[in-house]
């Protein structure tokens, strides 16, 4: 397909920046996509009056990999691996969201053990994602040591994922109908170790930042938004909760048995960068609470559904059961069919509301998959949040949103 070369004309710029820029009153400056504090490949067009950002125009799409189009060409089971690559700090959360959508579409139930393991893994993933946020956020504000500490802690979580699935990041461990395989016997001990030693560490990190006057100066009152603004702009997760929106999908629309766990939803009052940081720190503590309760109740039993029409039979059955061989063959060559209808499922990812719109057409491949991703929504609100602040604040604002460009661009 021929691609015509064309350049951005002044008229096209006219709608994006103010008239002052066209008269030369303000300066246009390009930031990114290759910039360490844009957390990936986010490009921003800044309109500056001195050092104050008059306008910010985000430009995304540098990491667009056509995941939704690719999933349409794969069976339900096989397109799961694409979800890992979307939000690469929340792989298991993406797996979970997609699997819940498939399970809802084909009406498949998940055994209790798998539900509990899913909750443990999703919360571990939330902690590891928030650790990355904490490290990179501090690094952007020139507190470099925290970055190293956080990555050290995160490595423990990745070790647990590797123990379960063999992969540190692209796990594809949560599958429609349950899990890929059972967690190993060492899993419980490793999780308990992690849960017992992390609270101390969180305390230490907090003591490095929370009362640090340099940190407070750069974050208090920066990018403060109200609860109404947050909802108007479709914000969710820690950014909205920092503004005082009491909304957590784990509480309001529970999935995977979250209604049976006791935890609090930390809220902020100012909606500024500092509150977003505090909310995330507190969320890590609440996640530890959930993991503790979950690991205590981890039941014995099957780790995936025994509905053979959707879930492959265990290897041991293949040697003596003809039905098992047929099911295995059908599932791995053709896949399972899903009804001609659509569902919309949401989960609370570390960044906010992650939604999966899934439509089937009666065949073994998804007819349409769409992910409503929290980073996309957060970046849309970035101009609203950053107008009138300094360029140096902009770095703090971007990292406080914790955007993942793989999540925004898909």
């Amino acid at each position, binding site marked *: 397909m021929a691609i015509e070369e064309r350049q951005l004309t002044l008229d096209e710029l006219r709608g*994006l920046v103010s008239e002052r820029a066209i008269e030369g009153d303000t300066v246009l400056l390009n930031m990114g996509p290759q910039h360490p504090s844009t957390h990936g490949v986010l490009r921003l067009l800044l309109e500056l009056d001195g050092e104050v950002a008059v306008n910010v125009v985000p430009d995304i799409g540098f990491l667009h990999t056509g995941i939704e189009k690719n999933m349409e*060409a794969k069976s339900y089971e096989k397109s799961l691996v694409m979800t890992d690559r979307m939000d690469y700090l929340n792989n298991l959360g993406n797996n979970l969201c997609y699997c819940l959508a498939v399970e809802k*579409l084909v009406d498949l139930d998940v055994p209790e053990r798998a539900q509990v393991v899913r909750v443990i893994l999703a919360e571990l993933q939330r902690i590891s994602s928030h650790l990355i946020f904490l490290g990179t956020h501090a690094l952007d504000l020139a507190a470099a040591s925290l970055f190293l500490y956080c990555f050290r802690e995160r490595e423990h979580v990745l070790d647990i994922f590797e123990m379960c699935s063999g992969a540190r990041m692209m796990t594809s461990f949560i599958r429609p109908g349950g899990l890929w395989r059972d967690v190993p016997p060492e899993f419980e001990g490793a999780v308990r170790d992690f849960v017992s030693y992390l609270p101390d560490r969180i305390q230490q990190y907090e003591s490095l930042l929370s009362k640090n006057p340099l940190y407070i100066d750069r974050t208090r009152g920066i990018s403060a938004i109200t609860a109404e603004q947050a909802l108007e702009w*479709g914000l969710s997760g820690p950014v909205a909760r920092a503004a005082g929106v009491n909304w957590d999908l784990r509480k309001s629309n529970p999935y995977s048995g979250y209604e049976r766990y006791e935890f609090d939803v930390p809220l902020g009052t100012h909606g500024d960068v500092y509150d977003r940081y505090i909310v995330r720190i507190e969320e890590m503590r609440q996640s530890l609470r959930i993991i503790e309760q979950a690991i205590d109740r981890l039941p014995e039993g099957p780790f995936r559904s025994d509905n053979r029409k959707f879930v492959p039979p265990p290897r041991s059955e293949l040697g003596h059961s003809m039905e098992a061989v047929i099911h295995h063959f059908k599932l791995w060559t053709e896949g399972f069919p899903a009804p001609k209808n659509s569902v*919309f499922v949401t989960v609370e990812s570390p960044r906010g509301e992650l939604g999966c719109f899934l439509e089937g057409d009666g065949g073994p491949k998804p007819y349409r998959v769409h992910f*409503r991703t929290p980073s996309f929504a957060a970046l*849309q609100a970035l101009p609203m949040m950053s107008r009138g602040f300094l360029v140096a604040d902009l770095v703090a604002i971007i990292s406080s949103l914790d955007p993942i460009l793989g999540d925004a661009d898909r």
Partner: protein
Amino acid sequence: MGVIETAVDNLRERLGERILELREFRGQTTLVLPGEALHEACGLLRDDPELAFGYLAALTAVDYWPDEPRFHVVYQLYSHKHAAFIGLRVPVGGDEPSTPSLEPLFVNANWYEREIFDLFGIRFEGSSDLRRILMPIDWVGHPLRKDYPLGYEEVQFTFNFDEINRRKPYAKE
């Protein structure tokens, strides 16, 4: 009576025959409406304090090529008060597809509409800023349409190497 039933009843009362279809599937409700009734329906869902569907949770489109109407634009609204989702679908014809923008009611619709414009080629009338968002600005075509090929490379064996090589799109001067 749940909030969804109330919402459906209120919409029926207001829009009457203009509700084309009511879909119930796995406990989720989706209403199919024509584009010109969208603002009225969303306004009612958002502004009625009993319903309070004030949050646009997701917006996407589906391509039913070669059927007509070719596209459905799918809206998901959320009510924080009732913790409930409701879906709306707007059919859009395949010939120069266009439908009213939801931006006057939900300001965050803009980027979702840009994404649909980019990937499906549906125009949103009244949108403040309808540019491509994910694909490069000079891209030709709309990749998520069903008649847009996924693209793959033919497998070359020794017996057909030259034949495939001839029509392979190498970078040329």
